[in-house]
């Protein structure tokens, strides 16, 4: 174990800003990307649904 | 009718493009004007201290030439694309790569070579000694064809696409990095009293590689844009 307490863990030897700044950025990117992707999928399915209704009424 | 030889085809394309450029004398002047303007902006922003200007001159002059060359890329194929000449070239019995090389050569003669000729004047403004001025001109002589060759790829891929010059810039500037590093590096070396041989040979290698492979990618890009 490297850390005496959770306070030590969070402090990262004084480098908290840099270490957590990097890891949180990674976490943010890898959460935002799938989220944006889910949004994109939703919009694509909506458009597909509209296309389907249009096709069915035309038929 | 016999097919023209590759050399004759290239010469034909070059001759035609030069004739067209001669009629529109403004174009090479725009490129030159931009080159001079940008080079003049730096002392205005940094200050006229001679020692500082001498130090930054190789990089600044190379970047100015690079930007001027890049801005002229839009004119390489656009006119022929718009009036259908490019399509004719693609359908002609001559390989498109040969026609492409002709157009790139003509473009360099009109937009790249003048930069080489004018560079000594700007170098004087920055207080560079004579041997460094010569090295600057030499590095641009070897480097500007690389810029034309590589830039042609970007120009071909973006024919008729909205976004214009900025898009070409985004595509082409990363690819310009090696030529910039070796070109400016050669001049820097001469300025520091070191041998520019290594930088110059690497720049020459860039030219050889570009001459071999860029026309292929450019011709492919033109065909894709014509579909």
């Amino acid at each position, binding site marked *: *174990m*490297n*850390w005496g307490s959770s306070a030590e*863990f969070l402090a*990262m*030897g*004084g*480098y908290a*800003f*840099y*270490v957590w*700044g*990097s*890891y949180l*950025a*990674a976490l943010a*990117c*890898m959460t935002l*990307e*799938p989220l944006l*992707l889910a949004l*994109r*999928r*939703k919009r*694509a*399915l*909506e*458009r*597909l*649904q509209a*296309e*389907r209704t249009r*096709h069915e009424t035309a038929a | 009718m016999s097919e023209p030889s590759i050399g004759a085809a290239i010469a034909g394309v070059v001759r035609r493009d030069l004739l067209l450029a001669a009629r529109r004398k403004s174009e090479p002047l725009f490129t030159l004007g931009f080159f001079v303007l940008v080079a003049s902006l730096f002392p205005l922003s940094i200050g006229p201290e001679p020692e500082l200007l001498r130090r930054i001159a190789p990089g600044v002059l190379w970047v100015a030439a690079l930007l001027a060359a890049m801005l002229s890329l839009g004119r390489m194929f656009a006119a022929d694309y718009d009036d259908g000449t490019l399509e004719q070239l693609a359908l002609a019995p001559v390989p498109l790569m040969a026609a492409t090389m002709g157009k790139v050569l003509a473009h360099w003669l009109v937009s790249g070579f003048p930069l080489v000729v004018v560079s000594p004047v700007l170098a004087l403004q920055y207080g560079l000694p004579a041997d460094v001025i010569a090295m600057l001109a030499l590095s641009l002589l070897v480097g500007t064809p690389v810029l034309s060759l590589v830039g042609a*790829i970007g120009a071909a*891929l*973006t024919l008729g*696409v*909205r*976004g214009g010059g900025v*898009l070409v810039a*985004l*595509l082409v*500037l*990363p*690819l310009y*990095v*090696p030529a910039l*590093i*070796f070109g400016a*590096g050669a001049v820097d070396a001469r300025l520091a009293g070191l041998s520019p041989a290594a930088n110059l040979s*690497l720049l020459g290698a*860039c030219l050889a*590689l570009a001459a071999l*492979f860029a026309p292929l*990618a450019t011709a*492919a*890009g033109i065909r*894709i*844009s014509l*579909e």
Partner: protein
Amino acid sequence: MSNGLINWFRYGSPQSFYPLAGRMVPWFAALAALSGAAGLWIAFFVAPTDAQQGEAYRIIFVHVPASWLSMFLYVIMAGWAGLGLALNTRLSAMMAHAIAPTGAMFAFLSLWSGALWGRPTWGTYWVWDARLTSELVLFFLYLGYMALNAAIDDPRRADRASAVLALVGVVNVPIIYFSVKWWNTLHQGASVSLTRAPSMATTMLTGMLVMAIAFWMYSIAVALARVRSIMLEREAHTDWARELKETA
């Protein structure tokens, strides 16, 4: 043998690849989560504190895997793009488009974490070392690819044009890296190299590898999910898309 060949090309159409990709996404997501957890464990609880850099060096477990992935994904993207050009398949081009944003994201992350590593270690947020500068150029290569694809209206023309650009880029990446390294060694006086980081203890290397695997699994999951969306967008007028059971 011919059966195997036919099977592969069956998945070459968007219609058959769409459900396959959908089944694969959760698996790769799970692998990403598992290896990510393992990597983070090593990064914070197994790897010891560094003598010179203190805890700041732990950024390496994000920075280096992100760099690796950004470069690896560009090559993969160019591979798919080249395949699409050679075989004239839509799906290959779509895979290339699906990979690009994730690659750009990792390039950005590499630059961001590199800056945050540089500040406590070397004193400045930006260090003009060969690796970071090349990474910056790579980031712009990604942006150029995505910009060209977005700027061309006709999807097939966009596919082919961006494919040529990706192939030109992949050939240039080693040249650019070499030239930047060259430039960096010449101007060595002012700059310091992040590559001369503390000599790699085995735990550090293992940690970086595990995190790299985590990022890789994540990338596959995201790319497969994205290509599904791309397919939905581009194949909206086809029968198979209309008959999908998914609702908005």
